[in-house]
């Protein structure tokens, strides 16, 4: 019984972390970015305020928007919330775990991105169309890289179940293939978070916010939160595979997990202000390079390294 309670608590905590940590990290991100710009920057809670405000704002549905536009952000959000329960973050087991759950996680992650892009398309706005086009083009390659690296992790650990993978990983750790694979996952997380130089789908000066141009109010909040959550889940997956020993530690699990993700987001925040936006071709080229690296990890995993 105790085990079950723990399981439920950790799952709820996982969902809670997935919803509240990324906006907080985004606040820190903005603060650091501001610091590199030599200015004070917003309060750390700013992104949470922003999302809270969007909740109370009017939600305008443009005339003739498709049902995808209406439901995509909520759907994506619920997909990701579900995924957050499946991904073990601070406790080894998750409430919903079964054989091949990794495949479902992957599926949910990529379909949430596709949903968001489709939602943008559903608004009928030409800028949203352009943003969604960019998003989809990039997602295909990014997901490829993510899939390759997850497969290489599966191969190396010889398991298909998240919990087993973590168990195995904490035993064999550290091995090159897993380190590379989780590095690739982190890179994917960076790209999926609409961060410069990959901020193409939103690209305010080019396409006025692109994919989110028609969203407002709660839907915009759900949209933004989904993007944050997706990035966070990828980061969570990656850091726990990269450094899995804390996950089974009941007391230190939570603080160490937060510390790990914080460090990752810190690096993200320092990197972003140093880049200019890629053109789509260049973005694809660099994502392709990341794909190549993920294939290397695949080969290494196949070789058992």
């Amino acid at each position, binding site marked *: 019984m105790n085990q079950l309670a723990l399981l439920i608590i950790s799952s709820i905590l996982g969902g809670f972390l997935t919803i509240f940590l990324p906006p907080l990290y985004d606040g820190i991100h903005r603060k650091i970015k501001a610091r590199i710009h030599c*200015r004070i920057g917003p309060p750390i809670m700013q992104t949470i305020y922003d999302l809270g405000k969007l909740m109370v704002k009017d939600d305008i549905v443009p005339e003739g928007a498709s049902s995808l536009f209406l439901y995509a952000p909520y759907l994506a959000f619920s997909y990701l919330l579900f995924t957050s329960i499946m991904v073990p973050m601070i406790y080894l087991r998750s409430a919903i775990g079964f054989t091949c759950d990794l495949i479902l996680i992957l599926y949910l992650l990529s379909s949430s991105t596709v949903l968001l892009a489709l939602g943008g398309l559903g608004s009928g706005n030409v800028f949203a169309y352009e943003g969604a086009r960019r998003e989809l083009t990039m997602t295909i390659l990014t997901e490829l890289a993510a899939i390759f690296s997850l497969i290489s992790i599966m191969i190396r650990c010889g398991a298909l179940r998240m919990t087993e993978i973590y168990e195995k990983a904490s035993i064999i750790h550290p091995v090159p293939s897993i380190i590379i694979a989780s590095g690739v996952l982190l890179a994917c997380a960076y790209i999926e978070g609409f961060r410069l130089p990959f901020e193409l789908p939103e690209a305010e000066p080019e396409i006025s916010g692109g994919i989110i141009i028609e969203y407002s109010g709660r839907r915009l909040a759900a949209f933004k939160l989904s993007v944050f959550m997706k990035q966070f889940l990828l980061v969570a997956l990656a850091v726990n595979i990269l450094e899995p020993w804390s996950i089974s530690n009941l007391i230190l699990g939570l603080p160490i997990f937060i510390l790990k993700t914080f460090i990752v987001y810190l690096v993200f925040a320092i990197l972003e202000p140093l880049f200019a936006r890629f053109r789509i071709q260049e973005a694809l080229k660099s994502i392709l390079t990341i794909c190549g690296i993920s294939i290397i990890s695949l080969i290494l995993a196949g070789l058992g390294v």
Partner: protein
Amino acid sequence: MSRFTLLKKAKEIGVITERYPYKPTKVPEGFRGKPEIDPEKCIGCCACIAACPPNALTSLDENGYRVIRIFYGRCIFCGRCVDVCPEKAIRMTEEFELTADDHEELVQEVRLKLVRCSVCGRYYDTERHYRMILKEFEEAGLKVDPEVLRRCPEHRMGMSAEVIGLRRVRK
């Protein structure tokens, strides 16, 4: 990677943001802020109104008063009114925080009493201007019949200097 010098640079410069509105800010000397009419000095001559490029300064004669009105919502803060004011009654202040909820709040009005023409009873000039002219005549050593000066320009027309009573007072 030259771009990483940006980090060094940011550290070197530090945060340069001013803490306004928590800390007040200072404007340099000679700043052209909100123009203000000194109601005690204004004589209602309307020189500023003729000079004002956007017509932010207007005048209107109503109910025995001349209303000199300045609307900051249209003012371009050029300071031409200050240049042309003969009485130095307008000055540029250092105020620039002109946030308002209503455009009526962005108004300064100076209502000056008018004098009537002694012939037709029409209001024609401000009392202050009238008194000033009288004083100027006196200072210049010219004597003038105040009753004649109290005529509107129309009824003063055609009167020679003698009739107006303009003659040098012998000392």
